[in-house]
């Protein structure tokens, strides 16, 4: 990994070589091993929005679950997770989640349907006057005072978003993980939700935005980590996503960028490898136009390139 520059603040979260695997019984007593995350590395600093972009099955939600310590009990985890320079042990995960590490979940399904939303938001507060803090946050997010007395089913999609962000806000967490906060929302609501996340970073918190929507990521992120088949294939600054993708380093990031309707709607055939049959070499090799025999023999390591990082033998 590359060392952070001296002027930059220390990462609030440092994930190195994270791998997650599951053993499953396939048929009878035959076991197979699924590897949804392989050698994944990301860091995130205070005041920064890091977008984690990838398709479904790329491991992005599992990354969030690994950080929060809520993986299923049969998961095998290797690699290191450090939070504020301390190892993120299971005990620390229990202590920190909900207080110093907060999750903005995907949908209304994460709210208690039988509890008024004001009470749910207040229950996430850890110090100070919860009622006052909840009123102030609702006012800030333009939620009328009577909304606190409503149940989740009475809220529209946009209001639900604001309630979910409110819970992260009131917790005072220094690391906020937002899991797919925007799909299927009208552009005005998308912009508003993303704006709230950007504001949280502006207050010195670190925000990890997990999304499959590269355009949403580009509007607020500082850096973008591109995931493929459970590994980080590239980490690039937002400015690299421009033109026909010539500044991007990895062939998958370029393909993702060029698939956007406004960038040519270019088709890339094939699909991510299945989790119990990962290729022995580079995980993108089976689909890669730049593939050579080197790529089938060994997995490329992450390396620094032009101010970002890439996992590819041929990237230049």
């Amino acid at each position, binding site marked *: 990994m590359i060392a952070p520059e001296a002027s930059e603040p220390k990462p609030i979260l440092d994930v190195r070589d994270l791998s997650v695997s599951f053993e499953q019984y396939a048929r009878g007593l035959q076991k197979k091993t699924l590897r949804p995350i392989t050698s994944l590395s990301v860091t995130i600093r205070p005041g920064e929005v890091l977008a984690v972009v*990838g*398709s*479904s*099955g790329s491991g992005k939600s599992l990354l969030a679950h690994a950080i929060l310590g809520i993986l299923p009990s049969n998961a095998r985890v290797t690699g290191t997770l450090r939070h504020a320079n301390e190892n993120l042990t299971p005990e620390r995960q229990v202590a920190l989640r909900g207080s110093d590490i907060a999750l903005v979940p995907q949908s209304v399904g994460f709210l208690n349907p039988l509890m008024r939303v004001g009470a749910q938001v207040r229950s996430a507060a850890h110090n100070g006057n919860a009622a006052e803090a909840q009123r102030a946050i609702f006012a800030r997010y*333009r939620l*009328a005072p*009577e909304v606190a007395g*409503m149940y989740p089913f*009475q*809220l*529209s*999609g*946009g*209001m639900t978003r604001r309630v979910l962000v409110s819970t992260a806000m009131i917790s005072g967490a220094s690391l906020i993980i937002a899991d797919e906060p925007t*799909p*299927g*929302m*009208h*552009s*005005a*609501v*998308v912009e508003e939700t993303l704006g709230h996340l950007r504001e949280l970073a502006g207050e010195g918190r670190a925000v990890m935005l997990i999304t*499959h929507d*590269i355009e949403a990521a580009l509007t607020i992120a500082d850096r973008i980590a591109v995931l493929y088949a459970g590994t980080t294939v590239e980490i690039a600054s937002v400015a690299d996503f421009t033109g026909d993708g010539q500044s991007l380093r990895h062939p998958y990031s370029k*393909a*993702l*960028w060029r*698939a*956007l*309707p*406004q960038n040519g*709607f*270019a*088709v*890339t*055939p094939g*699909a991510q490898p299945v989790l119990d049959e990962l290729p022995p070499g580079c995980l993108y090799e089976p689909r890669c136009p730049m593939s050579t025999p080197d790529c089938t023999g060994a997995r490329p390591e992450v390396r620094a390139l032009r101010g970002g990082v890439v996992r590819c033998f041929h990237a230049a």
Partner: protein
Amino acid sequence: MPLEARGIGFRYQRGPWVLRGVDLAVEPGELVGLTGPSGLGKTTLARILAGYERPLEGNVRLDGGPLPVTGYNPVQLVFQHPEKAVNPRWRMRDTLIEGWEPDPELLKALSIERRWFDHWPNELSGGELQRFCLARALGPRTRYLVADEITTMLDAITQTQIWHVVLDIVRERNLGVLVISHDRPLMKHLCNRIVDLESVMSDFPAAAGEGEVGVRPSDFRI
């Protein structure tokens, strides 16, 4: 002959009108984009066009007559969340052949692999499930496709893969498609014309957006 919505009005019980006075037509071979803020009734209109709901006012005409009440529906709706549109207790094979038996060429075009047939829906990704939903909806008697945010939950590469296949089939069979989406660049790329739902409601519902307690307010104007 077109698929037409004529003066459609819809509401739940005595709630505010969700849709009122909606006129819209899709011709064979035409891709029409439909957009509008969340909560305005795009999905409700989609369900009415495909015969899942009956409008309280106005009617849906296919070739100048009503939609068939029994038998195969030539207007097929594909939903945003494929995992909610398939039976979780059916293997994928049974879901696939629910309406007709898709030919091998269509399965190949949609990159549906035979080894998925024995899987349960929760074992497949959203993109894989959506391919099954499209294959199920693209029977030989389908003439119109209502695509309600069908690639919103998918990454850009899977989105292009799916739309390229759908476009090929639509051109080959001269199908009409209503593309419901929030993604302007996508609709500009796919559609012959884009319609804003607000602009086709001759009688715009005044109640929308006022947000009484107990009524689902539309969030876009708060």
